[in-house]
């Protein structure tokens, strides 16, 4: 395994706003990484830097061991799929597929054709007349079929309906099994991609907040529910990722799971309900912008 993407103290500033702040992470070859984060966390900026569309302000970024900005090598071996992808208006959909096939040496035209028919696109249609969801689907087809060593999807399912989303993720997985490559897929719906991805890269305030295998994320945190004083006693001085009061004296608290099995056993005995936390919920807790939650806005009442 070798690193396809390496970022070290990567920083990107727009005038006064810092979007990426000393971001450091490494993405290994032939993995599917889910890049998750709230809106504005810097996901798109990071991905655009990786594909060479944007220039880093400081720090080091290397894709295929090369600085991606203005690199022909990176451009030839990566594809960036998002809903802003634009195509020449004069070309029909099928001509666009053929054009893409000419640019990418690994392009699987047969697969593209198959997906094209499956999603019932009109080969003679035009991209600008597609609906939002259809555009996303079309872009995704190009993204999958291009079989680029580094394939990047930025919110690929925008506008797609439920069925198409499932089909897309399955198509991506199947083609990945057949033709392994490095895939980064960004989303703010973790539950949509959690089965598909191998690693999670959680972006918060322009930093890599967490970077671990998805299986570990599922065991990252644990929830206690029960009498408030008992819950507080058990969690000790751990950072509370999420808390909620139910009724007069019942508390629900999520903390990082570094408990010993005996501790949990004792907690259960003292009448606390212990449960695991769904990774999508955990994602929300981890990425919430500040301390507290929406309830705190209404705190005065």
């Amino acid at each position, binding site marked *: 395994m070798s690193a396809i993407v390496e970022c070290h103290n990567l920083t990107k500033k727009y005038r006064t706003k810092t979007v990426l702040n000393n971001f450091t992470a490494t993405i290994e070859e032939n993995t599917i990484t889910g890049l998750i984060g709230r809106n504005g966390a810097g996901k798109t900026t990071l991905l655009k830097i990786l594909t060479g569309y944007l220039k880093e302000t400081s720090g080091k970024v290397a894709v295929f061991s090369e600085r991606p900005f203005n690199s*022909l090598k990176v451009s030839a071996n990566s594809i960036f799929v998002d809903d802003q992808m634009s195509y020449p208006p004069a070309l029909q959909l099928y001509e666009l597929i053929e054009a893409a096939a000419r640019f990418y040496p690994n392009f699987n035209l047969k697969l593209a054709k198959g997906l094209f028919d499956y999603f019932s696109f009109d080969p003679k249609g035009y991209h600008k007349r597609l609906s939002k969801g259809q555009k996303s689907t079309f872009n995704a087809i190009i993204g999958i079929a291009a079989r680029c060593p580094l394939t990047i999807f930025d919110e690929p399912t925008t506008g797609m309906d439920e069925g198409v989303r499932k089909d897309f993720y399955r198509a991506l997985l199947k083609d990945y099994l057949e033709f392994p490559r490095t895939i980064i897929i960004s989303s703010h719906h973790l539950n949509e991609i959690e089965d598909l991805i191998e690693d999670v890269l959680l972006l918060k305030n322009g930093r890599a907040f967490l970077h671990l295998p998805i299986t570990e994320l599922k065991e990252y945190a644990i929830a206690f529910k029960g009498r408030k004083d008992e819950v507080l006693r058990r969690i000790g001085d751990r950072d509370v990722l999420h808390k909620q009061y139910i009724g007069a004296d019942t508390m629900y608290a999520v903390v990082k799971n570094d408990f010993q099995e005996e501790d949990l056993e004792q907690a259960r005995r003292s009448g606390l309900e212990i449960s695991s936390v769904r990774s999508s919920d955990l994602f929300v807790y981890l990425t919430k912008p500040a301390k507290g939650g929406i309830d705190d806005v209404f705190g005065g009442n």
Partner: protein
Amino acid sequence: MSLAEISLGAAVKRQFLFKMKANIDVYSSLMIMQLLAFAISYGDRIRYAVRDEIFLSKVYYYSVDPVIGITIFWGLVTGITVLTKGYTDTDFTFVTNRLSSTLSNILFLAAVGLAGAIMAMLSKNVILLVALFVDKADVLYGSPMTAGDFFLGTAVVFLYVSLACAIGYFIGALVKLNKIFVFLIPALLIGSLMFDAAQDQWPLLFKVYEFYFHEFSLAIFVVKVLASIILCYLASFLILNRMEIRS
């Protein structure tokens, strides 16, 4: 997984072919502008109607100079257009970097410029047909277009169009650098005209015009134009090379 190694030449070639196919609209705008210029030229074909005691002379004058002028102007517009958002975004959807993008743009502009030059020169024959069939001209006076004339004319028009493309491209690059140039460039042009008028001197713009259009030595002309073209593209590339692609 092995990485695809792509040479600059191959990237430029693919992009050039892609652009040729994708930007067919360039030809329709060329065609429409040439047709309009042709219509103007046709409407303007009666130059004199002189009447004295013996003759009532109507002088018909057929020329495609307006078509050529418009084609040069179209080159300027096309040069600017290639760097507008719609075009550059599609440019970077697939494999490219700034250098290959610029080189393929230059090739593309050269190709359509050549097509424009040939079309403009060929349109002369259409106006001759108008003379023959619409005006029933029995005899045409003037210089017939020889093959030599055709090639010389096409080459010179091509150089003019290419120069216009390069200037347009440079303007496009400036505008990409900063939107302020959208206002600044016309303001500078008008400003210089007004300044020269106030100073009561021959306008700088006309000196620029004379620099190219009043050069009667073909060799010097070619050198002047080629140098200007290279300068414009080089400057544009240096501006663009440091810029981000999509923000």
